[in-house]
């Protein structure tokens, strides 16, 4: 993975930059020792490592603004970092960049039940928000699997999803407002406890922008009342086609489950070996369908989903009768990654999305690619929304295997795009999928996105090298070819 060439003239000024940052953030807030910076050298995509030039951990918005204004003025690159759980390398440091950690922004500022909103600092964990409101029966809906560790600021950067976003939406659908600081050091507030602020929807744009547009310093999210009941069905199928048809027909019947997950046979067996909660080992595909809401509704829908599953040839079907049983149904799915980790030295987790109806087709293609690359794969899906997590099994100590796994992964994502889907459903582009962007977008598409980046960060200092395969200077992107006076009147119907 080629990163922007480090600017040696910036690195040469390291001591001076440290001194200036220490003026802005006194005390322990600036980390410059190699040993202490080591924990920041990678994020959740641990195959990639790079020591940062300097780490700074501000505690106040004003400090963030001052740091960014200074870096902007001096032409110093900045890589923002939340909890560092990105699976796409979004927080990978650069050798000539200041790593700006938001870990000290760790307070919940305001719990407002009357308006069903929580105002929090960005370093608070996803689950931390729920912890702040669960005593009154509320929760924060998006639930990425890293929710115990990942920060809400990082969730905004990545527009994080989770198992329950089929019904409750992604981060973008649950954030009401943010305060953020531009690279120039301007503090902006958009949204709040009210809905749908006017003007361009910069809140929606910032969400999922992977730290390239600004640094979020405060977040307002909406909270929901926890559903009174949740029950799950665990359904085995002899083929992925039948499981896929079941998924489509559940939704076709007007039912939006709280979660609808699918695992293929290798994933089922890895999970069963690991936690042993009674998954059907011989099933080709397993569905977990969770219904949540008022008890009467849940019980009604359990019946309807059961009918659909049976009509599609379910080979085994269990319905959770209590919370312990529901937890047991989920235990295998939730431990799928570590379970697969036990049967292979290394694995690579992919994250494409396809239209739901393409589930059997993508499975066929993944299977063919598995044979072609002579590499095993286990599949875990958010089937309800067509988001796939194929886990490619390999051994990084064997020469060439990492490269083969990356090629295999790239082939899977290309297949997703071919089938009408996208490169990444919830993990982000980061550096991992950066060079595949051309599979989905034309140069014109990508240039337009980069022009939006230029509106926020004209010197391209904020998290450069991520998301976009080619860096263009803003002046170059802004150029227009105008055929002044030569453009004939358009030859289209006019009145």
């Amino acid at each position, binding site marked *: 993975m080629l990163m922007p060439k480090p600017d040696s003239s910036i690195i040469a000024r390291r001591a001076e930059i440290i001194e200036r940052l220490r003026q802005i953030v006194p005390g322990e807030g600036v980390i410059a020792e190699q040993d202490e910076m080591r924990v920041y050298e990678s994020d959740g995509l641990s195959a990639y490592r790079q020591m940062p030039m300097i780490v700074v951990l501000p505690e106040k918005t004003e400090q963030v603004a001052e740091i960014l204004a200074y870096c902007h003025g001096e032409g110093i690159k900045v890589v923002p970092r939340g909890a560092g759980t990105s699976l796409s390398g979004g927080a990978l440091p650069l050798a000539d960049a200041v790593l700006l950690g938001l870990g000290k922004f760790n307070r919940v500022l305001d719990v407002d039940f009357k308006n069903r909103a929580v105002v929090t600092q960005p370093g608070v964990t996803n689950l931390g928000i729920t912890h702040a409101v669960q005593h009154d029966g509320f929760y924060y809906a998006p639930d990425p699997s890293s929710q115990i560790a990942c920060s809400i600021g990082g969730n905004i950067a990545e*527009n994080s999803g989770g198992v329950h976003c089929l019904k409750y939406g992604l981060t973008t659908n649950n954030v009401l407002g943010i305060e953020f600081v531009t690279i120039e050091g301007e503090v902006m507030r958009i949204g709040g406890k009210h809905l749908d602020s006017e003007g361009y929807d*910069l809140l929606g744009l910032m969400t999922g922008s992977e730290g390239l547009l600004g640094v979020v310093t405060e977040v307002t999210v909406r909270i929901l009342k926890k559903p009174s009941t949740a029950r799950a069905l665990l359904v085995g199928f002899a083929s992925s086609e039948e499981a896929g048809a079941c998924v489509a027909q559940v939704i076709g019947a*007007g039912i939006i489950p709280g979660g609808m997950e699918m695992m293929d046979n290798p994933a089922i067996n890895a999970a069963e070996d690991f936690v042993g909660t009674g998954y059907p080992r011989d099933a080709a595909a397993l569905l977990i369908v969770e219904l949540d809401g008022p008890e009467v509704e849940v019980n009604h829908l359990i019946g309807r989903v059961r009918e659909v599953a049976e009509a599609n040839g379910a080979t085994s079907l269990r319905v959770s009768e209590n919370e312990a049983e529901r937890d047991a149904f989920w235990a295998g799915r939730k431990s799928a990654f570590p379970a697969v980790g036990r049967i292979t030295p290394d694995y690579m987790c992919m994250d494409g999305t396809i239209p739901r109806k393409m589930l059997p087709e993508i499975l066929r293609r993944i299977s063919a690619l598995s044979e072609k690359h002579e590499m095993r794969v286990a599949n875990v899906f958010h089937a309800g929304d067509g988001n796939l997590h194929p886990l490619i099994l390999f051994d990084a100590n064997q020469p060439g295997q990492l490269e083969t796994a990356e090629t295999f992964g790239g082939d899977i994502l290309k297949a997703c795009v071919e089938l009408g889907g*996208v490169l990444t459903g919830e993990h982000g582009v980061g550096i991992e999928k950066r060079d595949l962007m051309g599979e989905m977008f034309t140069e014109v598409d990508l240039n337009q996105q980069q022009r939006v980046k230029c509106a926020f960060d004209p010197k391209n200092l904020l998290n450069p090298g991520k998301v976009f395969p080619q860096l263009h200077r803003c002046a170059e992107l802004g150029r227009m070819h105008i055929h002044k006076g030569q*453009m004939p009147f358009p030859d289209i119907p006019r009145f």
Partner: protein
Amino acid sequence: MASIFKPTDEAQVLDAVAWAISAEAPLEVLGRASKRGLGRPFQADHTLDLSGLSGINFYEPEELVLSAKPATPRAEIEVVLAERGQMLAFEPIDTGPLFGLPADQGSIGGTFACNLSGPRRIKMGAARDHLLGFNAVSGRGEAFKSGGRVVKNVTGYDLSKLMTGSFGTLAAVTELTFKVLPAPEKTYTVLLLGLDDGAATRAMAAAMNSVHEVAGAAHLPAGISGRSSVPYVANAGGAITALRLEGFGPSVEQRCRELKDELAGFGAIEELHSRNSVKFWAEVRDAVYLAEPADRLIWRLSVPPSAGQGVVAALAMGRDVEVFYDWSGGLIWLSLPPSDDAEHIAVRAVVAPSGGHATLVRAPANIRAAVPVFQPQPAPLAALSARVKDSFDPRRVLNPGRMVAGI
């Protein structure tokens, strides 16, 4: 000479925009022209009329997705969806009644361009939460796309959000793909009778904070409720506070019983069943209660729900206001007597402490030209928004001035 370009495909849209750039001639971008009264009036000699780009590209009910060209009538899409038991869950507003125009004239492109979302906004999100992807021609004269046809997608910036609510000032959209959802089998409405604004706010908050999945919470003060065409509401003889429950039959019935029990302390309670509920919530959605008299000025205020009643109390002081609430008190539809300036300074001063915003929805063109129709932004944010505009439309040929003067 004023021209109306009426392209029938994307290539012709490209030609028209390229010409506008070279001739330095701004274009007014129109779908079905039903919402020209909304937003700032502005001068453009030439029109880019997208009405020739109409029709559904594909609709896959089991995928919960529909793709259409921008001028496809919204009503036509809603009929097609209803045939398969589905809907646009953000409950788009039909602005026709408020502007004295026939109902159901709007396009799907205009619906997203204005991000106008109805009562279900508080549960299911706004129009902006439902657009999955689009194709468009930017003000640079380039055809580009963003997003896709799936919900789970974080590939690149979410330009669908930016496009929604941009009033055609960034790009001329040639294709939109959006999420659709199952329509409820049954809709009931719990009506609380005779509450003042304060009690109504508390009742709506209690309902929203319950486990009963309330999908609409509105309050019509005395004097407004009598304008409803739903007899139970019109004949209530005073204020009504309405709470919508929708979904599968057995669930709606039980939640209705339980919610009524929980709210018994607020006083007299009635309920509306499906037919009347649908009629009632369409009235709330379209703010029909304020349509007449047609010369009154109409504002739409968005504030934190708990702040709504205070805002209304402050506005009512010494003023002839007509008001009703939606979004659990967070959306205030306000009607004021005719004036030269729509009292914009006073209205915005009252809204400001809540952090919310005020939109001048209906006023004569000369007032909308002179008064900021949309909430003015702090200077740094306004400058950033202008740079975003320029990143799509540097020569300002697409609807310049539709949202903010000169931009």
